[in-house]
């Protein structure tokens, strides 16, 4: 842990303040094989057609995030979710590499993705990202209901809005109001792929449960902790790149805090939301009773809940491990795996 903590200077205070994030996640036993399949798929899909794109692809290691959340899934489902994660990160990189795409360009991209969701086929003259999205969508949505499709679509729309928000902060060079950060950051992490997670788990949340605030309390808390951990751990990189969507930088700006105090401020909020996450999960048995869910449905929903419960810890380890998040000052020559438990 010492070497990694040195490379990730903000990790130690985070773990000290949030004990729930300590220790080492379980990992799917065949995660490496899944990673090879994802790379093969991405190359065949044309997502790594030049050396830069190939380096970017290899730096994602999305399978090692998926392998920590879906530790017991079948191998093909692990690959499926790893593909989704990889695609989402590539989309994020697409926006990062465009200095300031216009709102029209953003809308054009999402309109074409929504075309896939609405019509189950790729749009005309589809590019590699759109073809890959179509393939993933068709496989994932095959056995899912119209209600689930509606939720996925709605979450994809929210991701469109958060992309507009991120690009706007970049374009204007100005921080958004601090109160805006939580809701935008949690959907900027492409929370729609957790809808895909239901398909990975071979289940679908009952509509009566998915629409409840009790469920969104769980999902929102999990996403908040995950993205805020990412913001703390990638702070130096984001500051170097003037990424004003980073919650720590926003807190520093709006509250007049020193860098250390801003980190501490966000870590305090991570601790509080971790408590909220636990509380939201513990509220589920009473919700199941109120909805009169069958025992089978309650167990299936609990699998999805467990994926959300694991998300922050999995995100933390993946952020510390993946080459794409490596600190600027890192001297490590390879994307080192999470070290053995201390």
């Amino acid at each position, binding site marked *: 842990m010492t070497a990694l903590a040195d490379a990730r200077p903000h990790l130690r205070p985070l773990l000290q303040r949030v004990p729930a994030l300590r220790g080492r996640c379980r990992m799917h036993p065949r995660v490496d094989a899944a990673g090879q399949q994802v790379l093969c798929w991405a190359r065949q899909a044309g997502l790594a057609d030049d050396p830069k794109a190939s380096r970017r692809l290899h730096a994602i290691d999305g399978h090692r995030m998926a392998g920590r959340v879906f530790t017991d899934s079948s191998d093909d489902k692990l690959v499926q979710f790893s593909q989704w994660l990889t695609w989402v990160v590539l989309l994020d990189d697409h926006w990062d590499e465009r200095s300031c795409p216009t709102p029209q360009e953003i809308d054009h991209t999402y309109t074409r993705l929504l075309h896939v969701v609405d019509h189950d086929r790729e749009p005309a003259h589809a590019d590699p990202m759109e073809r890959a999205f179509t393939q993933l969508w068709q496989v994932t949505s095959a056995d899912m209901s119209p209600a689930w499709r509606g939720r996925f679509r709605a979450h994809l729309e929210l991701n469109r809005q958060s992309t507009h928000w991120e690009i706007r902060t970049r374009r204007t060079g100005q921080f958004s109001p601090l109160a805006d950060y939580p809701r935008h950051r949690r959907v900027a992490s492409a929370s729609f792929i957790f809808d895909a997670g239901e398909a990975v788990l071979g289940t679908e949340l009952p509509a009566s449960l998915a629409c409840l605030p009790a469920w969104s309390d769980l999902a929102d808390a999990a996403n908040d902790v995950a993205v805020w951990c990412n913001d703390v751990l990638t702070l130096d990189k984001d500051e170097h790149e003037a990424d004003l969507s980073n919650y720590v930088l926003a807190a520093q700006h709006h509250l007049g805090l020193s860098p250390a105090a801003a980190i501490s401020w966000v870590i305090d909020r991570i601790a509080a939301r971790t408590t909220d*996450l636990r509380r939201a999960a513990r509220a589920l048995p009473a919700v199941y009773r109120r909805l009169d869910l069958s025992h089978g449905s309650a167990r299936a929903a609990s699998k999805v809940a467990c994926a959300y419960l694991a998300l922050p810890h999995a995100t933390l380890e993946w952020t510390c491990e993946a080459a794409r998040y490596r600190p600027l000052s890192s001297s490590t020559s390879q994307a080192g795996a999470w070290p053995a438990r201390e």
Partner: protein
Amino acid sequence: MATDLQVLKIDRSFTYIDVDGNGVITRDDLQGLGARLLAGFGASPAGTQGRRVADSFDSLWDTIADAADLNHDSRITPDEYRSSLIASFIDGDRFEPIFRPAIDAVLAVADTDGDGLIQPEEFQLIHEAFGRSEQDSEQAFAALDLDGDGALSRGELLHAARDYYTSADPSAIGNLLFGSLPTP
């Protein structure tokens, strides 16, 4: 060899895993039970306690599947389950190294304040995860709470679980772990 009582208890325990009632259990069913337990107590599967539950349930499934002479992705019928548990935990010596860690892990999660005691509401959450009713839970708790102090120690529950899954004694209190048994 197992007595009629032991067979009865084992057969009923099959139904506590097979809550969708499709007549077979798979690794996925046991993992679903684990998820129900963890989520109900707000325990992350990535955390220390969650990992213990998941790892011990994996070992438990492997033991059950191995003794039923199946590969690890197979479906286990009631007859296979019965034979496997008898071989492993009644005639065999696998209860301490395999079953006990799983029970310990569940009780550690359920003991939310770490005081070594399981309160009625915590016990009910465990029961719910196994598909038992509130009435079953109340009956079981009352039967197991021999000193009537309104709480069960983790040691008492571990002992009761061992009795349930292995004891041939009709008077063993642990027979009532999941509620009353049908009279023969």
